[in-house]
């Protein structure tokens, strides 16, 4: 208890592991259920699948990351959840704008797909940080602009978010190819890229927390 008070951002690698495994599992289960229960997948019905996945992922991400909220004395658990919920549309807007700037198709028939995709992206990138840091500009600036995370918690927020964005960026490359495959449509391969990047980011973040844990133990010894 004493330790937690002194530095709230410190979390153990097992916590990181559990959080990431939960997020990853829910993501996988989301895909599985969409495929086997609703018999839809990203290719056949991208907007509904994306919608289902972000809807199922949302409570898990917000509830989990709200546990790591900063300044716990000022910020109740419920407030952290509310911050996360507020972060969702804000992040979605930013993601959608970024995607549009990079060349996502404009048009009413793409609106639903873009919306669901950006909500999912927001869940990967903004919502965890919003739950943890709320509206603390300094922390946001540190994590997303400077990329100078310090502590496992920062890595836990920073790496998967960057992974998802970079994955989505690379995921966009097959889109113009003339293979005429259904998955080349917006936003299917971009979503695949984002999910892949997110998973890689989570693995990386867990690796970092393990390393840091090991270093700390060494120092303590």
């Amino acid at each position, binding site marked *: 208890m004493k330790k937690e008070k002194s530095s709230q951002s410190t979390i153990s690698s097992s916590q990181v592991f559990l959080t990431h495994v939960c997020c990853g599992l829910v993501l996988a289960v989301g895909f599985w259920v969409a495929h086997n229960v609703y018999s839809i997948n990203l290719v056949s019905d991208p907007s509904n699948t994306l919608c289902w996945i972000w809807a199922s992922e949302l409570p898990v991400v917000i509830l989990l990351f709200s546990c790591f909220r900063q300044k716990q004395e000022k910020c109740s658990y419920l407030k952290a959840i509310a911050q996360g919920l507020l972060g969702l549309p804000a992040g979605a807007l930013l993601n959608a704008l*970024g995607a*549009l*700037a*990079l*060349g996502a*198709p*404009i*048009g*009413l*028939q*793409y609106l639903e797909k873009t919306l669901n995709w950006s909500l999912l992206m927001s869940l990967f990138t903004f919502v965890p940080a919003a739950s943890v840091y709320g509206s603390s500009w300094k922390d946001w*600036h540190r994590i*997303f*602009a*400077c990329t100078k995370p310090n502590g496992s918690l920062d890595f836990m927020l920073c790496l998967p978010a960057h992974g998802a964005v970079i994955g989505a*960026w690379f995921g*966009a490359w097959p889109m*113009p*190819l*003339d293979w*005429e495959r259904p998955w080349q449509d917006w936003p299917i391969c971009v979503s695949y890229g984002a999910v892949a990047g997110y998973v890689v980011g989570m693995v990386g973040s867990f690796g970092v927390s393990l390393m840091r844990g090991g270093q700390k133990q060494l120092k303590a010894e």
Partner: protein
Amino acid sequence: MRGWWRLGKWTVLIMFLHIIAILIFTKGFLLTRTELPHSSNCSDLSESPCLSSSSCWTKPVVDRLIIIVLDALRFDFVAPSSFFEQKHPWMDKLKVLQRVALEKPSSAKIFKAVADPPTTSLQRLKGLTTGALPTFIDVGNSFGAPAIVEDNFINQLIQNGKRVVMMGDDTWTQLFPNHFNKSYPYPSFNVKDLDTVDNGCIEHLLPSLDEQDWDVLIAHFLGVDHAGHIYGVDSTPMIEKLEQYNAILEKVIEVLQKQSGPGKLHENTLLLVMGDHGQTLNGDHGGGSAEEVETSIFAMSFKDLPSVPSEFDSSSCKLQANNNICISSIQQLDFAVTVSSLLGVPFPFGSIGRVNPELYALAVGTWNLEDNEMGKAQDQIKLEEWMQNYVNVLCINSWQVKRYIDVYSALSVIGFSSEDIFHISDLYAKAEENWLYTKNLLLYKNESYNASLPDLKRQIVAYFNFLSYVAELARSKWTEFNLKMMGTGIGIMLLSLYIHFLAIKKVNKSYGVSLLSSKGSGISFGLMFASFIVVIRACSLLSNSFILGEGKVANFLLATTGIITLRYSFIKKEMLLEATIFLLSTFILRIAIEAGLSKQAATSQFLNVSSAWMLGISISQPVWTYMAETVPILALIILGYFLYKAISSCCCWGIPEYVIMGTILCYLLIALHWATESNVLDLALLLKGIEKNYIPRTIYAIGLIQLSLLAFVLLFSNKETSNYKGSLFVKMIPILSACSSTVIILLGKQGPLVALGSIVAGYCIMRLEGIEQHTVDGAPGISILDPLPIVQWNLLAVCLFFATGHWCAFDGLRYGAAFIGFDEFILVRQAILLAIDTFGFSHILSVFGLPLFVACPSLFNQTGRSRSVSSMKLFRILMMYGLITATTATATILCVAVQRRHLMVWGLFAPKFVFDVVGLILTDVLIFWAFIYYF
């Protein structure tokens, strides 16, 4: 001046290397052939040593000809499966052809037709009808339109009073716009539509067979080609298509056989069912692989005929259902001349094919039988008769080919080597020597027949030698890539890149700055990111899809760099507005690029872009037309205002001031010009007296005067200004403004908007320059140049090229721009205008605008620096810009070399290559001028 040369020699060296490399590569890659405007006439034959017949060149042996072209007909679609090691599902589907060939070996035959690359429909149709080997660039006087200007077999038919009916693929009507008596063209560019063209053909084909109003009927089916492109060869739609064709062909043959009796409509009809090229199992074609070049011709006449002497028989036979079925082979090159000789029209002037003995034999007997009825009994006499005719046809054939070769080497810029010419003449002379003797035999043919047979054979062999040598020579010259030259070109290009790099490094060293970073520790992120962007763009050129969507790719990368700079401005907590505006302008550019893409999709056969993003704005609404009329003029006024401010705020005086004033005057004239053209304001009445061409011409003239004034200033004023950067700015604004008025009027109404957009984007890039540096260094030390803004500027230039409605294809040139201010066509003048329109924003203005990065920051943060530092900076900027352009062009060259057998090498890669290469040389020249001007 010495200082100029010290740096300028690098640009000269690099330009020189680029030109050499490109020339060598192009010589190996872009095969060119000169189109000759001559055509053959009936009366020409009197110049030849051959026997002339009563009619035109040869005696017509076929009255009517039916050509059914099945696009992308693979050889194994027609030939029986017993000819192949393995039987595949798509074989033996055209059963009726095999059956007829089996039942009547003397009047119906299946040929393996070998086409020459490039195996694209347009080139093949050109090859089939002209009997020549079309190359990627047929140098001729067709400026954009694909119509065939060379002499061809359709043209000969028209000249000799034959009536031609065409149905099917509309490529024919593009190639022969005014040749057909009747035509039923159907659009060919929608690859996903398997049936429209075919159904249209079927609808008109069978009724036409009973008509009397044609002599030659052409029906071009596209279904197999499209099925191949979409589904591949091994697919159900393909097999369905083949079965459908089988049914149609069965009907056609049935109708023809019914009408083939003496005195009936199709007594003397020849049916040809043929492919224009083959296809690979994926349905691709264009290259030179066996699957692509091997197609088939099925020929059928409706008479019993003698068989060809075995020496000239190229057929291979297989036992099929206890019967021999034989398949001969023919070069597609020989098609035009053989068909011409059968119909008795003069051979196309540029044909280098030879009359194929087997195809000729299929039809020729028809008049033989009439002429001497008693000869029926004696096969030998019939054969000899046939050979006498054939040898005379070959004589005409050889004479015509020799005439073409002589005229071609006399007129063409790049003719044949003298060695080859000598060898050709030698072979022809040998054949002619024999001919004098053979001719006597033919003239006095009452002598014993048997004796003359060996002589005739010898004569035929002599002609064959000559013709096959010519064909081989032409092939090596017009269809084969010269890999050694291509490799050398690439090597020199890579060397030039290395020298480019060295030059930048050396200049840095001489000024005591290392390339990597000011501290010399590791590579800065900006450099890494910039090289990453350049490399990924270079790699993207390897795929045809990315070349097609190049504007989008460039915009994607530009937006990525925009996002990165936005991030940096977040870190620095400054210039957020500029970064946001920059992103916004990339977004607007992107919309403009997509609009250009949708325009491209309308003409391109490769592209299918849904213009879904247009939210149903109908252009016809009066509000929009009003907007479209006024917004460009408003933008022009804003541009003029900027210039006015530049004069008043800056220390401009003397000639530069007059130059800028001239540009403002030009803008006013342009606004007036557009106002008179528009319907909204009825100014047309006001200016009735002034012809519409005067304003553009005045603008061109003012532009020229401005440029010469600037050159004059450059030559005769040696004032050393203390503030170098200020003087740079003073130099930059006049030259940009002098160029801009011409570019804007050529680009039309989008011009001022694009100019405004690029000024805004350029301003943002300039302001954001070095934003990353400061964070790395902490404090702004010696600001070494970050390559990222240059990459951004380059990408912006690429985006502007696409956003102004251009794309890398010859139909992407805006031909209308060449005729602004002029009505009549003069090649050089119109080509210059077209070049200014095409490369105006993307090359001319962007290179001259490069000093922006040196000149402008000084106006905002007044830190005085010495002249040498900023001139070094300018040198680096120009060199880096050149390096980026050269890297992209090298990547294009490499990709073209790698993909030289790609399906779309002629459709996409080669035009892209031409545009990039021209752009590179233009950039080099412009950088050189910029050197002279700015230093």
